[in-house]
């Protein structure tokens, strides 16, 4: 086969994916960017090129400094959740992956335990969230038990519709996204490296810190990308578990869309995208994940 013909064949082979990405990824993204510079009034959106939407997003933000405007506060709150969820899922995910990779010896058991981890995914996100409510509510199981046992006099208010319940739901929903890539990294670690560390006098913790964690970095970054992108854009979990009382960027965008302020929502989305891309860029700068792909 000539080189021209073979390169043409390669193009054909790549075509389905290119079409798929173009229609479902590139096109919507371009539309969002385009709409974000359009104008709008109470009843119509008007094709235009105007910075108005971006100005509106940050309206009064610079003047108010050092006080934080609504946008900054919301970003801060979203980033705070992002950080807490990231830390919690990382800690739990790493521990679970470590257990599965290094303590469960047989492949059979690894598969079984992995399936156990996926059981929550057999129901929808919303059902998984809502099922926390009877447990954590004012008259929920935990509060009743605490009062009966005499540990508390009154129901604990911070259990539900609070930062705590949002964090809990996020961790519950997304830890699996940490476990899988970290586990994947761990299974690639040559066991003789752990023996070599032991031979060199490393304790268990020293081996963990000096050998296992550095070699798991690509998996940690991939899991982190999953978790960070999901949490930064979330509005359902924060809405349901926060009792519609906690602000998030996703929530702002969703509200603006419900008021048909599409250009404003699009501008917010573009800014959010830029922020998330910067976070991902920083993470991939720190760790080369190509090795893992």
């Amino acid at each position: 086969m000539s080189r021209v013909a073979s390169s043409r064949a390669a193009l054909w082979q790549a075509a389905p994916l290119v079409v798929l990405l173009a229609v479902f990824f590139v096109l919507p993204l371009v539309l969002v960017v385009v709409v974000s510079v359009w104008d709008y009034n109470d009843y119509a959106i008007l094709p235009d090129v105007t910075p108005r939407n971006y100005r509106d997003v940050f309206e009064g933000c610079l003047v108010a400094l050092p006080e934080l405007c609504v946008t900054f506060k919301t970003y801060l709150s979203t980033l705070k959740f992002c950080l807490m969820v990231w830390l919690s899922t990382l800690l739990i995910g790493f521990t679970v992956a470590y257990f599965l990779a290094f303590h469960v010896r047989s492949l059979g058991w690894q598969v079984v335990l992995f399936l156990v981890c996926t059981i929550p995914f057999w129901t929808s996100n919303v059902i998984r969230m809502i099922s926390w409510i009877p447990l954590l509510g004012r008259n929920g199981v935990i509060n009743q038990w605490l009062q009966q046992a005499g540990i508390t006099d009154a129901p604990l208010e911070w259990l539900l519709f609070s930062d705590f319940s949002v964090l809990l739901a996020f961790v519950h929903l997304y830890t699996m996204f940490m476990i899988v890539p970290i586990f994947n990294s761990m299974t690639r670690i040559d066991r003789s490296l752990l023996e070599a560390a032991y031979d060199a006098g490393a304790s268990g913790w020293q081996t963990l810190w000096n050998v296992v964690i550095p070699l798991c970095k690509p998996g940690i970054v991939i899991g982190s990308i999953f978790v960070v992108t999901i949490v930064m854009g979330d509005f359902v979990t924060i809405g349901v578990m926060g009792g519609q009382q906690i602000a998030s960027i996703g929530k702002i965008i969703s509200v603006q869309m419900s008021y048909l302020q599409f250009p404003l929502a699009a501008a917010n989305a573009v800014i959010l995208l830029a922020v998330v891309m910067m976070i991902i860029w920083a993470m991939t700068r720190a760790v080369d994940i190509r090795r893992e792909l």
Partner: protein
Amino acid sequence: MQGVAVELIRVTKRYGAVTAVDAIDLRIPAGSYCCLLGPSGCGKTSTLRMIAGHEAIDDGDVRLGDTVVTHMPPARRGTAMMFQSYALFPHLSVVDNVAFSLKMKGVARDARRARAMEFLLLVAMEKYAERLPAQLSGGQQQRVALARALVTEPQVLLLDEPLSALDPFLRGRVRAELKRLQRELGISFIHVTHSQDEAMALADLVVVMNAGRIEQADTPRAVFDAPRSEFVARFIGGHNIVVTAAGKAAVRCDRLAVARGDEMPADGLGLAATVQAVEYQGSSVVLSLQEERHADLAAVMDDAIFFADPLQPGDRVTVRWRPGDAHRLD
């Protein structure tokens, strides 16, 4: 150096119902090069790993010098292991790999890197200090692994098939280098291999193992000259197993005298055989011979003697050996 570096006392390893190492006793003198030789699955690697402390010992004891180390972790035994795959840390530079054990001991960064550089100098790898293992060739990785093991200043260096991953050309060179290092450092090397050439070339003490037992532990010359069992004779190679009146015996292939014609000598000691094949090997010629009771005799003849009267396949010959060349087998 004097004394015994490593002593195994009825050391046993079981994997479930399988006994991998069966109550072996062995004394390895200090400052010697010892090769554990045997086919795969003979228990040689398990033995090495038990000496290293990477495998629990089910029964018996291991002593290093005067200390019983049976239940000690590797780092406290005074051993260091060089792994078959080298097991270099892929995320650490060459110098940090070598300095790893010093880091674990809490040696400060500059001090441990300086010390690591000394050992890289010893294996002529100082120019590659800042490279990652993946950027090195197999032979270079091996030198780094060697430096990493030696930096702990072990009394005994354990090498698990160190040459098996190298190409034949490199293997010869590294072999010579290992021997040189062992001499210079004056410590004991215990080297696991399935290659008899390697064991012959390197060892002061060859330990031939089979099915979890030691068949023979001796100098290479004694093992080759006087194999104690049929297994050793066959595994070392270069031997014929002949059946004599006193039982089985091993005779070296190059100690067989081959004469044309099937006239048996007067004393009756000898075999009448047919030449099956002739293989020219440069300085020698290998004859494959067939005899009634011995299907696969081989004789190695000096090329000058052979070509004075060349034999052809199908020729009838008589084969003789001196009684002193036949070593009885257990």
